[in-house]
């Protein structure tokens, strides 16, 4: 029987590199910022929630919008853009897709940007109700490594990478007795958001089965 887990912390990210960097997005960006701000109006953005990032590497500089009530942030620079939402779940997936589609579409249209490959990430901290986090993780430890010491292992991590997919399992650094799970998948630029969401959900369900856990929605 699957172990019931709660997911107190979760986030979703979608990062897209442009087909080619466009430095106009640094210099001539007032109309783009205004356009994105207007497009996000249904979610009540505030001018105070716009942040101009002028530090870091040139590729990290740009403009970030925040929608605090939705825990959404959207950043665009000269080479890429990134959408993040905290406290995500599948019940709010439609809303998440609507907001990200609004933000990306406004940027693509106003900045005349051609979007490239889409990189998605889902991060979750799973807190088991009865087991310890090591009970969930230890089946993924090769016995040869586990046998290096007689003492029980305190924690461990596993990272598996494929051409367009990556899975990370780790102990949580943010919660007591919790497992951190990160699911990353890369999509072609033409992929539809809904199709991406379906595939990510299938990834999550598959990984939960492998871990032997089920979300406690009680």
């Amino acid at each position, binding site marked *: 029987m699957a172990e019931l887990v*709660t997911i107190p912390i979760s986030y979703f990210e979608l990062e897209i590199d442009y087909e080619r960097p466009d430095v106009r997005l640094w210099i001539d960006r007032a109309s783009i910022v205004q356009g994105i701000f207007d497009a996000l109006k249904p979610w009540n953005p505030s001018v105070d929630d716009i942040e101009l990032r002028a530090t870091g590497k040139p590729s990290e500089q740009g403009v970030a919008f925040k929608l605090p009530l939705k825990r959404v942030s959207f950043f665009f620079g000269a080479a890429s853009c990134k959408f993040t939402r905290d406290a995500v779940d599948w019940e709010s997936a439609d809303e998440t897709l609507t907001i990200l589609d609004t933000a990306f579409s406004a940027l693509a249209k106003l900045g005349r940007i051609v979007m490239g490959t889409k990189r998605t990430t889902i991060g979750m901290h799973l807190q088991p109700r009865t087991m310890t986090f090591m009970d969930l993780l230890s089946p993924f430890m090769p016995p040869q490594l586990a046998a290096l010491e007689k003492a*029980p292992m305190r924690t461990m991590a596993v990272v598996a990478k494929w051409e367009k997919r990556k899975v990370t399992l*780790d102990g*949580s*650094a943010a919660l007591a*007795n919790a497992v951190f799970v990160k699911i990353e998948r890369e999509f072609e630029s033409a992929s539809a958001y809904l199709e991406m969401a379906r595939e990510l959900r299938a990834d999550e369900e598959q990984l939960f089965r492998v871990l032997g856990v089920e979300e406690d929605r009680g």
Partner: protein
Amino acid sequence: MNAYQEFQTSGNQWPQAVHLMLHEEDQRFPFSPEPKQGRAIPDYLEKQVVSFGAEHDAALNEVRRYFVLPADPASVLTFLSGHRTVRQLLLEAPAYLKASFGPDAVFNLRAPIDESGSQTLYAVAMWPGDLRDVRQALARFDDAWWISHSRQASGYLAFTYELV
């Protein structure tokens, strides 16, 4: 406890939820003062309260690193908002708890309201071993730290165990 050095959150710092009035963190009797109508709240005071709120949120994140909150954490979070000393004690306790109960022990937090209407926060060791061992661990913890600090909790915090 993590093994792989990597960011595990989005990195966004979200402001605390804005209440009707910024100084009303908790509206339950007797912890919140009555707002006085017509009294202007100085700008600096609001900023100070927001800063206290951010500090409290950061402390709660620390508490979550050491203690497992219930699936619906509202009762515990509200309790900790109204009992800041208890929150501080929870942040000091883990080193002594680990030393007494072992590094892998899991502690749950619960804040039930008893029949008389009063509320106490329980830090419960979920103990898979036998009763004698957990009693000895609790006694070690009491002697090493809790007896000398329990007065600060004013009876609002208790450490106990549950056999699982």
